[in-house]
């Protein structure tokens, strides 16, 4: 090479390109490529070829063949295609091969041709078939978009979390669009399609016509469109041989070019090198390749990270090499070696010729307690291969219950899941398993399971208390928990029943339960309550007014306030209200009524069990000193001073205190000697004190 720039060709004014061979492909394919559906994974990933995809013959020799090669053409897998006709192939970001069939089924294969799973793009497709499909990549993952025979689009933005979106109809669309592509803007996947001279943008809500800015006139049809890998740029090829390049938002034109070739290109793609500022579109016809480019502002390209590199190695089962790289780069275990070991383990569980015990042991030996290894992921893989027992064995090594439980549920080992959830202490997890069990088991078995798990039982009771009251009753019944049943019926007597008879009946059930629980006190109290309820109803009928749901105490008070003293006394006798409380009750009610005459009569009915100080206090509270004084004289010696002070008789209080020779009382009186008139009294007390000290 005599001159470094000799093999560079100019591209526009300021950019150059060159063509050179990176490496030659190991495969011996040449012309056959023409007859293949081809899909190359991004970042130098594998290449999938489906040969003879359009053959419909049933004979084995003529069936399509699916070959998977590495980027350098090393064969990785080859299998006969036994399923339906394939419309499109593509690789997901996780290097899974998605094969979209005409009937809308999408078959998913691993890098080594191992079948993973399948899903459908919707029932509608069964009838209308899939005309065309695209596999695309967004920040959420890899998506699939299909165009059906009815000229409708359906897409799923992330095949990992499949949600099908049927796009709105394009008005007046009678035939397939001349070209279309998927876009992704503001986190929403969209479809751009060309019909004659018009462009339409479809999102899940609407179909809108769009016009690229600065598009040359005279276009009657778009033949090709291409969107860049990052969804930032768009190129359109028209039937006038004109190329428009701009932003995918259709807000800005970057450049345009007229190539004067009117034939529809076979392929058009954006290409650019990592960290390069140049962007270009490569257009290919049967025997011609054209590079159209511009050199505008800088663009950041995401690099292939170490993590992705390791993932790629792992997918190619190059575990030792990956581990060596980790060790060389001194990656933290969690990101490095443990992750790779975990992948190795996932591969290991697929070795069907090794027994469950041996696989589990081998995995545990190699992985041990390596930080960051998820045994549940490995177990999930084992379960995916139909090895449930192995999965359970592997789960035993999993320290995180949160991870064990969902898989155990999936494997229908609900009871084991329940004990694992309980072990974790995570009540939410326990609830989840419980609701699962409730649907899975019949009621009897479910209750039996609960019985053996007290923690789960209490949680479920709480759930029922708020969500399923009847079930709560059944649970208590099953456990012969009569005390709680009693409380249950007490609550029910308030909540469910309006009529007195209904309430009394509920209370009777409660009382019976309390008897069974040997809680005589509660049973008797409940019976008293029933008696009171009936009585209150009668009082309302006979006397009018509100009695229901008053306490016994308040019922008696209400009666006295209404002037029904006899009835109040009868009530007190019937319910054995203690004398002391009855006196308080009457005293308070009569004072409230300011019925001083009745109060005095009452005070003389017999010797007060609460003394007479309360009488003094309550009269003073009603500001009736005159009445208060009547009772002050009757207060016993112990509280005499207090009573006299209450009615303001400081002098007499002093006399009593001096007589009692009680120091506390003396200082109490002294603290009340405030006015000028009390001067003499104060002196008297001081003298008495002095005298007392002399002795």
């Amino acid at each position, binding site marked *: 090479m005599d001159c470094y720039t000799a093999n560079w060709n100019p591209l526009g004014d300021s950019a150059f390109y060159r063509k050179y061979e990176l490496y030659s492909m190991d495969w011996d394919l040449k012309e056959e490529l023409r007859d293949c559906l081809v899909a190359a994974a991004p970042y130098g990933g594998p290449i999938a070829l489906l040969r003879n995809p359009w053959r419909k013959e049933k004979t084995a020799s003529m069936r399509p063949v699916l070959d998977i090669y590495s980027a350098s053409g090393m064969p990785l897998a080859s299998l006969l295609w036994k399923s339906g006709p394939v419309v499109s192939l593509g690789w997901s970001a996780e290097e899974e091969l998605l094969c979209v069939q005409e009937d809308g089924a999408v078959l998913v294969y691993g890098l080594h041709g191992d079948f993973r799973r399948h899903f459908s793009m919707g029932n509608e497709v069964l009838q209308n078939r899939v005309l065309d499909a695209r596999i695309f990549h967004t920040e959420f993952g890899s998506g699939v978009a299909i165009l059906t025979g009815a000229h409708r689009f359906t897409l799923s933005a992330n095949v990992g979390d499949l949600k099908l979106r049927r796009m709105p109809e394009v008005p007046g669309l009678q035939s397939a669009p001349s070209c279309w592509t998927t876009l992704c803007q503001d986190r929403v996947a969209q479809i751009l399609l060309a019909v004659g001279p018009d462009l339409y943008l479809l999102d899940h809500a609407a179909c809108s016509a769009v016009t690229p800015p600065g598009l040359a006139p005279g276009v009657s049809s778009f033949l090709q469109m291409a969107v860049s890998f990052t969804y930032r740029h768009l190129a359109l090829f028209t039937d006038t041989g004109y190329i428009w390049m701009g932003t995918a938002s259709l807000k800005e034109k970057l450049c345009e070019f007229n190539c004067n070739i009117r034939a529809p290109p076979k392929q058009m793609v954006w290409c650019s090198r990592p960290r390069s500022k140049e962007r270009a579109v490569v257009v290919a016809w049967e025997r011609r390749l054209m590079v159209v480019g511009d050199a505008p502002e800088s663009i950041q390209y995401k690099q292939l990270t170490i993590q992705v590199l390791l993932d790629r190695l792992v997918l190619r089962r190059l575990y030792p090499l990956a581990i060596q790289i980790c060790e060389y780069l001194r990656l933290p275990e*969690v990101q490095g070696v443990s992750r790779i070991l975990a992948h190795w383990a996932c591969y290991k569980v697929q070795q069907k010729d090794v027994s469950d015990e041996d696989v589990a042991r081998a995995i545990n030996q190699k992985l041990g307690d390596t930080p960051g290894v998820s045994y549940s992921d490995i177990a999930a893989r084992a379960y995916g291969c139909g090895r449930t027992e192995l999965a359970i064995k592997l789960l035993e090594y999993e320290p995180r219950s949160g991870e064990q439980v969902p898989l155990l549920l999936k494997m229908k080992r609900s009871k084991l899941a329940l004990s694992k959830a309980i072990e974790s202490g995570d009540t939410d997890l326990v609830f989840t398993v419980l*609701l699962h069990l409730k649907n899975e088991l019949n009621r009897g078995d479910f209750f039996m399971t609960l019985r053996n798990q007290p923690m789960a039982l209490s*949680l479920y009771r709480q759930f029922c208390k708020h969500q399923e009251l009847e079930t709560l009753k059944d649970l208590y019944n099953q456990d012969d928990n009569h005390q709680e049943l009693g409380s249950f019926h007490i609550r029910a007597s308030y909540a469910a029943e309006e009529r007195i008879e209904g309430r009394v009946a509920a209370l009777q059930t409660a009382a019976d339960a309390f008897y069974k629980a040997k809680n005589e006190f509660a049973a008797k109290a409940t019976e008293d309550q029933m008696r009171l309820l009936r009585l209150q109803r009668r009082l309302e009928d006979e006397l009018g007014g509100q009695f229901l749901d008053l306490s016994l*105490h308040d019922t008696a008070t209400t009666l006295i306030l209404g002037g029904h003293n006899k009835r109040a006394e009868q009530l007190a006798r019937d319910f054995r209200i203690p004398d002391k409380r009855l006196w*308080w009750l009457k005293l308070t009610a009569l004072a409230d009524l300011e019925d001083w005459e009745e109060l005095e009569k009452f005070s003389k009915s017999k010797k007060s069990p609460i003394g007479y100080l309360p009488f003094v206090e309550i009269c003073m509270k009603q500001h009736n000193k005159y009445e208060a004084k009547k009772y002050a004289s009757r207060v016993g010696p112990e509280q005499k001073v207090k009573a006299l002070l209450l009615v303001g008789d400081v002098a007499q209080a002093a006399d009593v205190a001096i007589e009692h020779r009680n120091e506390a009382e003396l200082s109490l009186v002294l603290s009340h000697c405030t006015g000028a008139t009390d001067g003499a009294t104060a002196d008297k007390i001081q003298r008495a004190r002095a005298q007392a000290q002399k002795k």
Partner: protein
Amino acid sequence: MAAHLSYGRVNLNVLREAVRRELREFLDKCAGSKAIVWDEYLTGPFGLIAQYSLLKEHEVEKMFTLKGNRLPAADVKNIIFFVRPRLELMDIIAENVLSEDRRGPARDFHILFVPRRSLLCEQRLKDLGVLGSFIHREEYSLDLIPFDGDLLSMESESAFKECYLEGDQTSLYHAAKGLMTLQALYGTIPQIFGKGECARQVANMMIRMKREFTGSQNSIFPVFDNLLLLDRNVDLLTPLATQLTYEGLIDEIYGIQNSYVKLPPEKFAPKKQGDGGKDLPTEAKKLQLNSAEELYAEIRDKNFNAVGSVLSKKAKVISAAFEERHNAKTVGEIKQFVSQLPHMQAARGSLANHTSIAELIKDVTTSEDFFDKLTVEQEFMSGIDTDKVNNYIEDCIAQKHPLIKVLRLVCLQSVCNSGLKQKVLDYYKREILQTYGYEHILTLHNLEKAGLLKPQPGGRNNYPTIRKTLRLWMDDVNEQNPTDISYVYSGYAPLSVRLAQLLSRPGWRSIEEVLRILPGPHFEERQPLPTGLQKKRQPGENRVTLIFFLGGVTFAEIAALRFLSQLEDGGTEYVIATTKLMNGTSWIEALMERPF
């Protein structure tokens, strides 16, 4: 800002910053303008983490309270529900989402579960057909909220009831998670002590969780030397007694919620000259109480009887400081005086507030009834006449004093007598049902289930043994210059704090016998540290103990622990964590059940 969180031995601002960062990150995930729909219970605790300004910086334009039917109109791109993971809340959210006006501009929905995402709740949303409507469903692990430089709370009102009545350990799981978060920020705690069934379970969960995270080796130098987990039901007595510290009394009388108290406004009327007090403010005076306020930090933990002298001394200092202006002669002196003015004015405002509060409290504490109640409480706690019907309680019932007050006293008597004689118990219960209504039979059952009210088993009273061994009653208490924790209840030393004190010195081995009488196991666990992280204590350097009250803690207990922290030869400083800051009233309230 939250400078008061960094005064202590452990800088709790680190935790606050961590949870604030987590919140910001979540808000930024929902790009564009947003409205927050609040589970009302969360607004108080969130206020301690982030003010509205932080939310506003992250494009929160509207806030609503979660309720049924259609959401209020708001021209925003995102609607975010901030909720506790509860089924009944999920039903409301579903109702909101389903009645969203389709004709209006499409709004993105998100849910932030506090403190934990719940499969159960997501299943409910799925059953209601709205799960797919949410773009982000995440959790915000706000377990322990920093209240003060040495105080963290989960503010979980129902934790005690759930744990001891309903067998629901959700709050214990959250507590364990909260402790893991603390360890992630402040290093692995090398030693765990505990007493009680719940304590044992939290420790088990922590050990288990640690095993789950083996991957991420904690390389932070440990700040805490040990952790003490205490079940509330090991000490049912303390919260029942009336707290006698300044802060404790404010809480007993007015209730402190998320560090705020609402007070009757009369005493805070601005003093204007020539104004006959015509327009007294009618709205309650709301004050924030924490150690950011210098004066409050000084008096909050004192016995109330020692507060007056501090206030009057402060008043003299402040007026003297203001007098200084007459001495300021030179321009330099005047300048210096003026520069101190804002600080002095703040101090004067603070003094005026606390003088008013102290007056309000004094009105209560000097009442005869308060004195009578206290006398009965103290008799019970010192073991006098605990086995027969008490006259004062009887009179309280007869006069229909507030039921909670009665229940507190009856429970106190029961606890101080290791349960009541059947006859006494039945008498009280009958009196309560007849006076306050038969529906309270459910509340009484709850109290019995929680062990607060019970018949004495086999006629044996263990309380005197416990009282004597742990020296729970101190006759010679010094309220002004305390020498023992018993000053916080003017004689009674809180059992829980005594256990902590004895653990620190001389160790629990000395009280094995009493520990066996108290409910639940006691235990010790070690969490091994890598050699590089093992601590070599300097001579004279105090240990730092994180003490976690499972089921709630009172301000008086906190005061007692702070007293121990400040002892010169104490050897241990405490950081306090709890499921809920509470007092006897709020505690009993949470255990009450009203069927209608």
